[in-house]
């Protein structure tokens, strides 16, 4: 990953920025959930790049010159949480769609105000 100009951390931060753009500028709820996926991928990439160089081997069994296992262990947990979060988000979105029939944050907010 650390070869030349484009190293993993940089790619991770670029992905993070793309995800954040999606959260900031998109009115579509599905795209919001997708942006969360992108942000999560960015963070996982960021963590895996900590203390990493190309010559390291995977931290399995006995061996020398292994990669740092700690961030990898953390990221397994983060991936599991990410799956749960996406599932809950999509479920809630489905239920919201049944009530309002729209995928747009702004339109739903307007409808909600009118129904009050």
């Amino acid at each position: 990953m650390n070869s030349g100009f484009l190293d993993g951390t940089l790619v991770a931060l670029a992905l993070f920025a793309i995800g954040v753009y999606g959260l900031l500028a998109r009115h579509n709820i599905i795209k919001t959930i997708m942006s969360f996926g992108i942000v999560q991928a960015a963070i996982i990439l960021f963590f895996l790049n900590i203390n990493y160089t190309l010559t390291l081997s995977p931290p399995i069994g006995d061996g020398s010159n292994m990669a740092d296992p700690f961030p990898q262990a953390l990221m397994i947990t983060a991936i599991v949480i990410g799956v749960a979060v996406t599932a809950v988000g999509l479920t809630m979105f489905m239920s919201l769609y049944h009530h309002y029939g729209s995928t747009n944050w702004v339109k739903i907010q307007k409808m909600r105000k009118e129904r009050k």
Partner: protein
Amino acid sequence: MGLYWFIVLPLIIGLLFYFSHSYLTRVAVLVAQLAFFILALRNFWEVKQGGMKLEIVGGYDLGVGIALKADLFSSTMVVLTVFLFSCMLLYNLNKSYVNHLFLFLFVALEGLICGIFLSNDLFNIYVMIEVSTIIVSILIIFKKDSQSIYDGIIYLFANLTSMTLFLLGIGYIYKIFGTTDLALLAQMIPLTTDGRTLIVPFALLVTAVCLKSAIMPLFSWLPKAHGTASAPSIVSAILSGLYVKGGVYLFVRIFDLFMPVFDEATIFMVFGFLTAVIGWVFALSQRDIKLMLAYSTVSQIGVIVFGLSLNSTYGYWGAIYHILNHAIFKSTLFLTAGIIVDEYHTRDITKISGVMARMPYVSIASIFAILGITGAPLFNGSFSKNLIEKGMSDSLVFELAFFIINIGTILIFIKYGQIFKGSSAKKSHIRWNQKFVIMLLALTCFLMGIFGPFLIEFLFGFETTVSWSAYLTKFLIYGLTLACGYLFYRVVYLKVRLFGYIQAMELSFNEIIMAIFVFFTGFLILLILQT
């Protein structure tokens, strides 16, 4: 007994009773809950006698295993958590919507909140918060009403966004220090020679924590989540009374941790003041009683942050004591508001009247809580607010700022108090368990005020005295503030249009996210300019 039981035991209780669905199940959960309360008290006593407990689950080295720590502050918060959850379960003994799923989620939330207070590792805190966020959003939409689903989804995504920032911050911390353990970090951070390396992780963590504790520009999710129309009232009470304190607790921890490098007390004093003022202005503009209470929570969080940032021991412990007090009176208020809404079938404050005649017990409990929150002498709010005031070292600007905050709180509850006036031909019947819980909480408000100096010494080992002559002046000051507030309410409030405009203000989802990143960028720039 290991500390991990405080996280695991509620989950086990919830799972055991998940498979049976009778009234007896609820009673059994309640009994288990009471036993759990005794365990929490014992844990507190052990910490008080033997000092701080630190344990690592699985017996690994510090920094590798899951570290749990119980000091006086965190074990007090655990006792508070278990106490409030016991009250809520008793309160809800007869509600029809309580099924096995609700009980499981609710009890699991208790374990997770205990976990937030006990964890001594940034990543574990992240996991606890993330999972509890999911559970809370499900509890908010539990009755599947269209309004609450929108509120729940906004709550979920706003909080998740802030937690991704938190996780990125943890990544930076690990990159710099090679550990996420708070005890190890506390040793390493003072050794940092160049503060600039810590700017980015600090800004990321602080943004996330500020959203969790609903500080000024980042509070718009809170009233949605806490005040949403159809959320069960025990969920609102737990969220507003306790769960938001998890954010404040982290705020205290993170700021203590970074204290040697960054000292942002002045800025957060301003933020605390603004949060408190904006909170009461919004609260005063609402007509929905639950929303009024939710915005008043924002205002009280402002008071707590203001007290914490005063840079004095009096202010600090006053704010910590206010965290406990606020948990008690705000949950009382949310429970009583829930009963009132159920009886009147409306949340509009203008349409509710004659509560005193119709439901005397509920009214007395609410009034006790109102006296607490407005800081009437002898009640708990007065003691903690007095300590915060003592921490200001007689600075006129601070005193004035605090007066503005106080008068705001009084204004909210003068408006809220209108519902008690009037007569009602109907008498409402309230179940014994609900009556018992609200009266118990109201009594706690009073006792925590009377025994304030004793309790704060017992809980935190902080000694302070209150002379009886001081009570007399307090009565005078409270009376004067009350009169000012009433005059303001009668003369100015009813004629000002501004409040109507504020009531209609609402941020969309994208604007909430925008607020998070504007706050983050602003804070980052501020830190860069400082160092």
